[in-house]
């Protein structure tokens, strides 16, 4: 690149030297040479260099419009398309990544929910089993308790039955000893009354 700039500078410096190598016009040019349309040499050159200007500018326009600018434009367009395509690809990649993340999250959530459901079911089952066992145990205990109560009640009834007889006999014996005779029937009635009064009938 440096060599290129050097070459351009050399050409730029050398060519005008060649241009100035031509001899200056014989007749002096009064005033501004740009306005010396009346001068025999300058006047002619002023007109001719405008004609050449039109030709050269036309050439520049043709080359620019036909070759140079479309080429630069296509290069820029190519780059723009490439960048857009890359952006599009990046966007698509991001979308798919997002989708994958979402899927992964959904899967995780599903797995967690399943696990929780399984835990809950197991827990429930265990609780149900425990409840059933407890129930059975309770039932058995209840029945045992009832049986025991029944036995107790039978024993108490038996004891209560015995109590009346014992009380009647004791009272009869006491009365007999105290007063010399005993009316067994009256004693039994008195015992009966007394027991009823105490709620033990």
């Amino acid at each position, binding site marked *: *690149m440096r060599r290129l700039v050097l070459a*351009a500078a050399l050409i*730029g*410096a050398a*060519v*005008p*030297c*060649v*241009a*100035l190598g*031509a*001899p*200056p*016009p014989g007749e002096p*040019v009064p*005033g*501004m*040479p*740009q*306005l010396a349309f009346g001068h025999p040499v*300058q006047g*002619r*050159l*002023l*007109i*001719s*260099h*405008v*004609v*050449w*200007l*039109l030709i*050269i*500018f036309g*050439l*520049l*326009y043709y*080359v*620019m*419009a036909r*070759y*140079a*600018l479309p*080429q*630069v*434009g*296509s*290069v*820029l367009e*190519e*780059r723009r398309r*490439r960048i857009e395509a890359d952006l599009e690809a990046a966007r698509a990649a991001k979308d798919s990544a997002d989708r994958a993340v979402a899927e992964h999250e959904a899967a995780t959530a599903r797995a967690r929910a399943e696990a929780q459901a399984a835990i809950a079911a197991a827990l429930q089952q265990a609780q149900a089993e425990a409840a059933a066992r407890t129930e059975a145990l309770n039932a058995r205990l209840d029945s045992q308790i009832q049986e025991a109560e029944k036995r107790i009640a039978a024993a108490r009834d038996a004891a209560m039955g015995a109590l009346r007889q014992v009380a009647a006999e004791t009272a009869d014996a006491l009365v007999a000893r105290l007063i010399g005779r005993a009316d067994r029937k009256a004693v039994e009635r008195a015992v009966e009354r007394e027991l009823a009064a105490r709620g033990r009938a």
Partner: protein
Amino acid sequence: MAAEGNTIDALSQFILVPVLGRVGESVGFTQSNLHMLIAVGLITALMMWGTAKRALIPGRMQALAESAYEFVHGLVTEQVGEKGKRFFPFVFSLFMFILFGNMLGLFPYAFTYTSHIAVTFTLAAIVFVLITVVALAIHGRKFFGYFFPEGAPVWLAPIIVPVEIVSYLSRPVSLSIRLFANMVAGHVMLKVFASFVVMLGGLAVIGPFVALLPLALNVALVAFEVLVAFLQAYVFAILTCIYLHDAVHLH
């Protein structure tokens, strides 16, 4: 050539001289035209050769060519709008032609073809003819309504219409004289101060020291001329775009 006797000859640098020997003389091919050809060659080389590799990541030349393209493209689309795209090659050619003419003129021994009113006026005349033809082609007879803005009171017409016509006709004049005067003034100043350097440098012992002053000034002036060279090309191009906008949209 810089100083003959004690007069400063700042204008002889603008004299046209035929080049290419007898052939050039007979067809009136001057050093000015040679510089135009060099400019066209450089512009073409920059645009064609710079982007020949079609690199995705541009090198220096390609970046320069692309930024020139996008700069003028932005100018045209911003000023003229979407319809202005077909004028882009023209505005681009105009801008680059003037820019390279101005810049080439800053090289030693080089000739500044934009310092000739004949050249700048020809370019401005091309612009003027183009905008008039475009306006007539797009708007037909409605184009003449341009000289009398809608909504203005009718009794003002005798004043407004001549003013508008004069301002329209003065476009190529102002366009060409602006560029021409800027380039001439810059080069005359450079020449004058360069002559000072030579004249003061010959003065006794202190001469070379005093001569440093105009030399320093010339260095600054060259930098300023680079700015002017770009600015004037830009102004020419943007005014052309504004005129094209008027031609396409009629205000």
